[in-house]
């Protein structure tokens, strides 16, 4: 048995003008050959990287008319021989074409398997492969930009440079341990310190960008909470109806919640559990404290809505307690009815940003959005040359940072140089794991398992 050949619908399962069935592996051409009929050539005689018009057959039945491309190893996404059948984009016809390809000997690709092969065949490193997934799932401009940069190797290049610096220093140290006569360690520690400090600074810069960067890219998960009758749903509707805002509905993390994403310029808010808020417009409003607690726990930002025309009630106080430790903005709603207390007074007493808003006429909302931009450093983030958005990368960078810290401690304590190698190698490995250049048990399956079908 050689490599096996895999196939999947690569264009998603929504009706569309065009849909693509991709077949990859050494048998790709052979498997597809009897299924396609192109005028004047057989598939094995087809030129690579050319688009042919032809028919797709199941026996004598014509399944579809299609454009057919043959890509030859290693010049394809997977770096294997690949046949792409560009059919009409209905889920049923695509399903029939795929079924026929599978019947002819291909195996249904697992989610992410095409990308996995691209990685295993050395066409993409791990960070680049992950960027493919990020690019597909990007729904902000910043996300797209970041993913493309990562796909083009900007992250990999930076990480490789850091690894090279570490390796050079470690290699000299190891050489000196073996051959002290010819490799002198005098002044080594003094030379190492600035290198480690620079590396740590670079990593810290990347890490600092990571939290806010991820939020800028994925959107800020925002919880709107408030006791009954403060006007949550009116506020939500006002927000969603806000001029220039684009609203999309995307599935939330749990099955029965709907996440609405609100976009205004570079600001993306993912309004969690909006379904819950909307339900509450029903006759009886019953958002329990438990539900609020849950929502707050998962949020990056809490908008705590109160009735500004009245003094805070006990229920309001309970909600303030809930928000402790979270980025929170207090909104005094119903400002159109007059305020019981000024936002400045509330802000200084609670030590939280506070704004007067009116869900009724939209007053004050612009200022809130601006405050969110500042809270999440959106302007700075756009200036970052390199943005880390992947949680796995973030964790590994954090490990590398910690190891560099330990190595610097070793220098501080003037411990013998050989102790340095432990932490230098740890940092080196952590960085290597970002690229997939260190062997990691089961990492590969875990990562590619998160990919979507057909990629």
């Amino acid at each position, binding site marked *: 048995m*050689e490599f096996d050949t895999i196939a999947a619908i690569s264009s998603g399962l929504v009706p569309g003008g065009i849909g693509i069935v991709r077949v990859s592996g050494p048998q790709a051409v052979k498997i597809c050959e009897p299924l396609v009929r192109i005028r004047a050539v057989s598939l094995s005689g087809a030129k690579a990287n050319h688009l042919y018009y032809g028919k797709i057959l199941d026996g004598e039945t014509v399944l579809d008319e299609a454009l057919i491309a043959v890509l030859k190893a290693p010049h394809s996404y997977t770096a294997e021989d690949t046949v792409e059948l560009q059919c009409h984009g209905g889920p049923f016809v695509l399903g029939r074409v795929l079924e026929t390809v599978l019947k002819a000997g291909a195996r249904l690709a697992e989610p992410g398997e095409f990308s996995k092969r691209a990685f295993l065949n*050395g066409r993409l490193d791990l960070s680049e492969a992950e960027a493919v997934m990020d690019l597909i799932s990007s729904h902000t401009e910043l996300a797209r930009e970041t993913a493309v940069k990562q796909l083009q190797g900007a992250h990999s290049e930076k990480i490789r440079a850091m690894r090279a610096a570490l390796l050079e220093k470690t290699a000299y140290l190891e050489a000196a341990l073996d051959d002290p006569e010819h490799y002198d360690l005098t002044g080594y520690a003094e030379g190492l310190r600035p290198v480690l400090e620079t590396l740590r600074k670079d990593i810290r810069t990347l890490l600092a960008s990571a939290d806010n960067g991820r939020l800028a890219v994925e959107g800020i998960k925002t919880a709107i909470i408030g006791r009954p009758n403060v006007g949550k749903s009116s506020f939500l509707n006002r927000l969603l109806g806000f001029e220039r805002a684009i609203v999309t509905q995307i599935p939330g993390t749990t099955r029965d919640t709907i996440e609405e994403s609100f976009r205004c310029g570079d600001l993306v808010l993912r309004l969690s559990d909006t379904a819950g808020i909307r339900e509450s417009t029903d006759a009886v409003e019953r958002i329990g404290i438990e539900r609020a607690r849950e929502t707050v726990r998962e949020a990056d930002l809490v908008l705590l809505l109160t009735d500004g025309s009245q003094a805070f009630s006990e229920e309001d106080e309970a909600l303030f307690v809930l928000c402790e430790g979270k980025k929170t903005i207090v909104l005094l709603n119903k400002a159109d009815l007059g305020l019981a207390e000024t936002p400045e007074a509330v802000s200084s007493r609670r030590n939280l940003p506070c704004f007067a808003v009116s869900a009724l006429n939209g007053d004050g909302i612009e200022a809130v959005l601006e405050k969110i931009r500042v809270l999440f450093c959106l302007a700075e983030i756009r200036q970052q040359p390199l943005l880390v958005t992947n949680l796995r990368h973030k964790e590994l960078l954090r490990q590398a940072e910690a190891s560099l810290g330990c190595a610097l401690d070793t220098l501080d304590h003037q411990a013998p140089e050989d102790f340095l190698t432990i932490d230098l190698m740890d940092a080196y490995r952590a960085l290597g794991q970002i690229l997939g250049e260190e062997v990691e*048990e089961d990492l590969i399956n875990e990562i590619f398992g998160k990919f979507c079908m057909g990629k």
Partner: protein
Amino acid sequence: MGKIIENTEKADVLVVGAGHAGCEAALAAARLGCETVLFTVSVDSIAMMPCNPNIGGTSKGHLVREVDALGGEMGRNIDKSFIQSKMLNESKGPAVHSLRAQADKRDYSQKMRETLEHTEHLRIRQAEVAKILVGDGKILGAETVSGKKYLAPAVILCTGTYLNARCVYGEVSEETGPNGLKRATHLSDSLRENGLKLLRFKTGTPARIDGRTVDLSKMEEQKGDETITPFSFENKPEEVKKQQISCYLTYTNENTHKIIRDNIDRSPLYSGAIRGTGPRYCPSIEDKVMKFPDKDRHQLFIEPEGLYTHELYISGMSSSLPEDVQEAMIRTVPGLEQAVIVRNAYAIMYDCLDPMQLKASLECKLIRGLFSAGQSNGSSGYEEAAAQGLIAGINAARMIRGQEAVVLKRSEAYIGVLIDDLVTKENTEPYRMMTSRAEYRLLLRQDNADLRLTELGHEIGLISEERYQHLLKKKSAIEAEIRRTEHTVIAPTEKVQALLASRFSTPLKSGITLAELIRRPELGYAILAPVDPERPALPDDVCEQVEISLKYEGYISRQAAQVEHFLKLERRRIPEELDYKDVGSLRIEARQKLEKFRPETLGQASRIAGVSPADVAVLQVYLEKHKNVSRETLM
């Protein structure tokens, strides 16, 4: 004419060669109850030291301690025959402390021979083994040049540098083994005929000079340690204490280098007359001069060959230059102006086995029951040889008894690193043990070799019950004392503050545990004795372990985490019968390498050059998928 009398002998284990690998292999096998025959071309050259007159040194000292901890002989033998002992690198961390002892060469050889002769089940036989006997993929025995057959289920090759050896200096080329001894001319062919691949390696040795012609007053004297650390964990410092002799340090200079450069075309290595690859890390003086043109001097270490002779060994000056050049360059060195050569420096070329053909047990993948150890596996050095010899001897005996082979991991011993490197890395030059090769060296210290390995040695059967009980006692004493230091609170009394002040240590604000104080870089276990009245009287080796464990706790635990990580892949075994053609999406280069090496674990596979992490991932995925299938097949 007389009829040929049937001339066959039977044994369990045959050991071919009685150098440092052969002696350990034969002793281990015999001590484990196997009838063992040890072949040597000359009984008078048993355990001979044809190169440097010392045992141990950086990282090699670790190997000797480990050999001893497992029940091997080298440590005990050098303790009997050393003439100077020194712990190297004491200014550095405990991981790189290394023990080295100067040997009296004749005494070392003699003492080893006595041990062999007093070992039950062991016979020494002076004869050149000409053939290995193989049938059906299994070793059947060996045949000597005289045609006598020895039948045995296990044969251990410890042929050192003897196979088709050739010694060269300048234009002189002689067909001899080391030290002018007879070489072995037949066995290489027999190994090749049985499908084994041989390599041609080169190594060298410096000249020996007459001590009476040397002016030691122009050199730096290097004395041995006051308190001697014995190599063997069985011996106590006071038991091996003796009058020590000194070594001397001197240096080459520009004149030396000029002579070498002017005559470099007369070096057979540079003129191309020598084929075979020499070691990178034990380079000849001409290599060093050419490789480091900026260095204005190279260190030379003058070592006595023994108490029985005036001969001195010039460490650092191994060479294959012609005799006249050797003489001239030696006489440029301070203290050696009048030096008279006793033996020339020479390079030696020899056949050795490509060690990739071996499993980590040191058994041949191709021929069941054929083991190989030492320089015949492409290593260099007495200690590397002894370590392999011990493991080969143990595993030959275990194979005969039907027991699983003993394989030490990289995380357990330098021996594990040594053998793993030999069997997984493509060697193009003699392999020398080095500190940098052991990635987990903080755990693999020379001081804890017994704690790491003696339990295993006992299980194997080479460590006596008495020694084992002693080890268990030591272990529990260490643990108890660490616990005590963690529970002993030192109050900020005047006495304590004064002690701290004398060591420039921050004074105490309140009570602190003794362990915390020991961890301070400027303090230590011994230093704090005056403020620790409850301290029990403990042997030095226990105190040493307590101090190291506490002081380097952070580093040790981080290294232990690295080991945990490493072991994950190490534990994943690759079935012996795996057909790499079945593993989809392996790159062609990776498949070829894997087919060639046939790694035993995923960890081994990951260390093969040309196998990338992605390739290992492919293998991993494949093994995972087929785990259940193969289990079903078994049922």
